[in-house]
């Protein structure tokens, strides 16, 4: 009993110090100057445009990576071909790349002194320091989320149901829409949820390509940084508290999915 209590206390203490207090600090600091200051900070013009931009970027990047995830999972799990393992490793690659590097690669391609910079300049197209750059960097960091959720799940489900549907006269598209998709819907939702959380919260990658232009290329995490560096702490924490809320909502939905549909989510215990 003694050792049990000791280990339990240590584990709780560790989680309390390293997880609970930072989360608590966000909300306490956000309301340090009262509720009026809090609401002023999150309804102020630059904050509003940062919120809007974060939603826009996620609304473009998440569907792109969802379509990719579905296509990649279909090709990888419904067919046998050479080099499959290598392809899966490549899909996972962005997870092991520093967020800063994820932004850097696009600057090297599209920046003023990038490989395609002069060419794009001649065409009048700007990528770096624009929303396009933010979307690209976000796509890079959230690239594997949907695919790596769907691949093990669809692998497990095999091809027999699709083959049955095809034998019964379904087209390939019908087999996908009426057989595959319903089978993977919870796993897909799970992947999209995690992808979205990362897309909205990404900092390092977008920070490199954004240029931090207030009202134009400033997402919520970048806005938090600007306010913080201006010593406007309460406002920084107010905007941060919205992102912390997003994280909490994500955790709740994620746990609900795991509890309700744990069997149909492949990586609920894997990251």
């Amino acid at each position: 009993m003694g050792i049990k209590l000791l280990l339990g206390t240590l584990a709780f203490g560790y989680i309390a110090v390293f997880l609970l207090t930072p989360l608590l600090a966000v909300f306490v600091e956000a309301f340090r100057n009262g509720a009026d200051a809090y609401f002023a900070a999150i309804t102020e013009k630059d904050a509003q445009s940062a919120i809007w931009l974060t939603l826009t970027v996620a609304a473009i990047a998440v569907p792109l990576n969802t379509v990719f995830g579905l296509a990649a999972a279909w090709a990888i799990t419904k067919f046998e071909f050479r080099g499959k393992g290598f392809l899966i490793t490549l899909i996972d690659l962005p997870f092991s790349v520093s967020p800063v590097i994820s932004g850097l690669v696009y600057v090297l391609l599209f920046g003023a002194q990038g490989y395609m910079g002069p060419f794009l300049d001649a065409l009048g197209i700007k990528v770096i320091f624009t929303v396009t750059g933010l979307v690209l960097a976000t796509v890079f960091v959230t690239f594997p989320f949907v695919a790596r959720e769907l691949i093990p799940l669809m692998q497990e489900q095999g091809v027999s149901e699709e083959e049955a549907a095809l034998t019964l006269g379904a087209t390939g598209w019908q087999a996908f829409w009426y057989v595959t998709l319903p089978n993977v819907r919870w796993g897909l939702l799970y992947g999209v949820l995690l992808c979205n959380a990362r897309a909205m919260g990404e900092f390092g990658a977008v920070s490199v390509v954004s240029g931090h232009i207030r009202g134009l290329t400033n997402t919520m995490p970048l806005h938090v940084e600007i306010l913080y560096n201006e010593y406007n702490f309460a406002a920084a924490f107010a905007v941060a508290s919205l992102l912390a809320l997003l994280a909490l909502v994500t955790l709740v939905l994620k746990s609900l999915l795991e509890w309700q549909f744990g069997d149909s989510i492949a990586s609920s215990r894997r990251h």
Partner: protein
Amino acid sequence: MAHVVRTAWRFRQPSVIPGFGITFGFAVAYLSLVILIPLAALLLRPWELGLVGVWEVVTAPRVLAALKLSFGAALAASLINAVFGLLVAWVLVRYRFPGKRILDAFVDLPFALPTAVAGIALSALYAPNGWFGQYLAEIGVKVAYTPLGVVVALTFIGLPFVVRSVQPVLSEMEKELEEVAATLGASRGQTFWRVIMPAILPAWLTGAALAFARAVGEYGSVIFIAGNLPMVSEIAPLLIVIKLEQFDYAGAAAVGSAMLVISFVMLLAINSLQAWARKR
């Protein structure tokens, strides 16, 4: 099959399921455009400095100090998480207590919380006038704006990896094994080291390696608490940002490539760890 059919080399097995061409084609094209070509640009760019130039960039004292800090602090953080992550996984799997599910779900917070938010929250806690910082200052411990602050931030973001790697292996382990060991006269310590530890070792190492790999490249949660003093508390990813701001693209790419190569070697190591774990 009595006779042997010699088949030509084929890229893929025949299948009645349609859609390989379009899904494979799209997936590979998208992967190439978004990930592979940009990464190739990163690996190509430094060489305009020449071999000697790249070497000079990567071995400059400030760069070496940053790389040393990034890898050293990541190692320290993953060691802390290896110990406490195992402990948390153990408590979550073996003990029954109210609120267990909530605590379990909460472990994933560092995955869900944006890194910049974590960064400013940790600064609020550990700054010299912060929640913890003021008491730590009294006993002479400085966390924020020192390498210790970097370790704290990296411990936060790496926390879930070990827990989530070890947890499934622990919960699948048959308790009978431990009971058998106990009946055969093993002490608790012996049971732990001789029965439990060998079973969870691959998953444990994998989790620690994943936490390490993530920590090495981490940026958002670190820069607020680190203070970013050159040669002291400046991490490698920040150095890339600084070089970019000075329009030193090749230098930034050189540091980035060095980090990428080291990360890639680690990814290979993690994959072989996981393959080893599957075989056992």
